[in-house]
């Protein structure tokens, strides 16, 4: 029980720290993001004066000009947040930040989520195999995966786009669906699903290629370490079939750390997509983040960062609790 209490307390503190960081950053650094935002909004609305409600919302998120104490601002900030008010976007005026994020989230979750699961399964299966065959030529796969890991993701994606999409024309180059076939936006039809699927293949492949090496290497190293444990030697001495020793004795235990990593990777599904979505102009959360940063849309930037952070924390939290069930040792030693 103490284990679960500790973990819950840790995540409560972390959520508080993340929100406070979001609150403090624009206020501590020199410059006046709130004034910039209000100026941008005024331009976005075509020079018409902004409603007091909008100005109040910006001030709550990014800091009022002067006067109110930091503590009062902090309370107002939390109040806004708990009501789900993340402010108004200046780059997509007058859309609410919450609505923009809600529209982008499914794209990211489906694309990066599927790619992450695929990459994990591939990496674990291959890693268990390479680790089992340690000391053979398969060990040379280890440096190969390192090279794969060191390639900057976006560069690999650019090269693949240049070759497969631009030169060979096998895949669409940009976007989440064909905007010419579906000018009205996403719809619930078979043709739309097909279009979205063909647009997702190349981004998903690049994500898998760039991340599978990490899973493979981690699993292989754990497998090598587990194979020298006494219980594996015992299992072999008992004369169990090698396939049984491999799957039930070695791989099962070797996969535990990777499983924890998988939980964390799932949390990063929302965050890890930023570069992918920039390369492919994919209409997800990451693209929203880039638009916000390059357009100095501070409200949108804060909102996306908050959503990304909360997803990561939630995934970590769930994984921590599950991990205590999978591996009881961490409950007692933590």
């Amino acid at each position, binding site marked *: 029980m103490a284990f679960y209490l500790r973990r819950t307390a*840790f995540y409560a*503190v*972390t959520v508080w*720290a*993340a929100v406070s*960081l979001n609150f403090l*950053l*624009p206020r501590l*650094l*020199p*410059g006046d*993001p709130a004034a*910039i935002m209000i100026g941008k909004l005024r331009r976005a609305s075509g020079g018409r004066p902004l409603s007091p409600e909008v100005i109040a919302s910006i001030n709550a998120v990014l800091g009022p000009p002067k006067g109110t104490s930091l503590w009062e601002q902090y309370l107002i900030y939390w109040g806004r947040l708990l009501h789900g008010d993340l402010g108004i976007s200046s780059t997509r005026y007058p859309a609410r930040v919450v609505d923009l994020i809600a529209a982008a989230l499914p794209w990211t979750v489906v694309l990066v989520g599927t790619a992450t699961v695929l990459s994990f399964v591939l990496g674990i299966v291959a890693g268990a195999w390479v680790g089992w065959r*340690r*000391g053979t030529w398969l*060990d040379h796969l*280890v*440096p190969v995966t*390192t*090279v794969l*890991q*060191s*390639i*900057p*993701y*976006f*560069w*690999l994606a*650019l*090269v693949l*786009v*240049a070759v497969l999409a*631009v*030169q060979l024309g096998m895949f669409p180059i940009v976007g989440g669906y064909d905007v010419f076939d579906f000018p009205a936006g996403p719809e619930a039809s078979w043709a739309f699903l097909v279009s979205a699927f063909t647009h997702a293949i190349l981004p998903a492949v690049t994500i898998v290629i760039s991340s599978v090496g990490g899973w493979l290497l981690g699993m292989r*190293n754990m497998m*090598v*370490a587990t*194979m*020298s444990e006494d219980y594996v030697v015992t299992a072999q001495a008992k004369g169990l079939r090698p396939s049984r020793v491999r799957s039930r004795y070695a791989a099962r235990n070797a996969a535990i750390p990777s499983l924890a990593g998988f939980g964390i990777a799932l949390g*990063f599904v929302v*965050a*890890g997509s*930023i*570069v992918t979505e*920039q390369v492919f102009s994919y209409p997800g959360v990451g693209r929203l*983040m*880039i638009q916000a*940063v*390059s357009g*100095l849309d*501070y409200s949108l*930037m*804060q909102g*996306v*960062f908050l959503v*990304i*952070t909360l997803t*990561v*924390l939630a995934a*970590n939290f769930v994984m921590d609790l599950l991990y205590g069930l999978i591996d009881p040792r961490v409950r007692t030693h933590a």
Partner: protein
Amino acid sequence: MRELMPRWDGKLAIGVATVALITVFALVVPLLAQDPRSSANPALLPPGPGHWLGTTKLGNDVLAQLAVGTRGSLFVGVLGGLVSLVLALFFGILAGYIGGVVDEVLMLLTNINLVIPGLPLVMVIAAYVQNAPGLGSLARSSLMVALVLGVTGWAGSAVVLRAQARSLRTREYVAAARVAGEGTLRIICVEILPNLVPLIAAQLIYGVIFTVLGEAGLSYLGLGPTGSITLGTMLNDAQTGQAVGTGAWWWFVPPGTIIAALGAGLSLVNFALDEVVDPRLRQAPQAVRRQRRSRAAITREEASA
């Protein structure tokens, strides 16, 4: 002492050679090549005599840009790696060695830093810092990029260092030093740190890789340094200059190759260090190989008998 040195093998040799080559390239070639910002050349020239790697859309010589960019990336990488190493040492060793409440507090900070997603945090900080009027030309310098990446990327190393420091704390020679009345700082510097050298070196290398890749990513997203040339800013220029669409491969392939080679070289060095830190990684494959060899020898003997 012998055990703390990595075993000299093919992987390590290739790694060291790659990193050395790239470093020499970055230090020497900028002195020989033309001015990387000179736009006196014809635009988008494919590789050929005179311009070995061709020219960019603005008429810059790609080879000159590549050399200066590699130097810029190495500078950012080493500086960012050092910053994150210093922070990781402070948080990790202090938490691991002192333990108790200090451990709880430092580890809480480390874990918070660890779970907050890195790239979005870096983007948010960079967006605020780079538009802060008070910082002047520093705001978008490569120094600032290195600092931002270093300050956000230390937590993973801190966790690794803490675990080792914790286990070293219970060793007898450390206890002996404590009984002899040595101060905490002296014990950490004289008894703990020397035993962590392979691990610290590995963490520094990870830090450098992380910062080089991080700088490339930030620059690609348009948040890189503006004053100086790095491999990341080259890739960003290539992206905005439609290099992929127009088939100007000589513009975006070389910077990516250098980043990949540098990262791979450093990782290969780290493999050798990993095998020092965790001898099982080296011994297990060796043991299997020895077993197989002796089994083959027995079969051969039986066959000849």
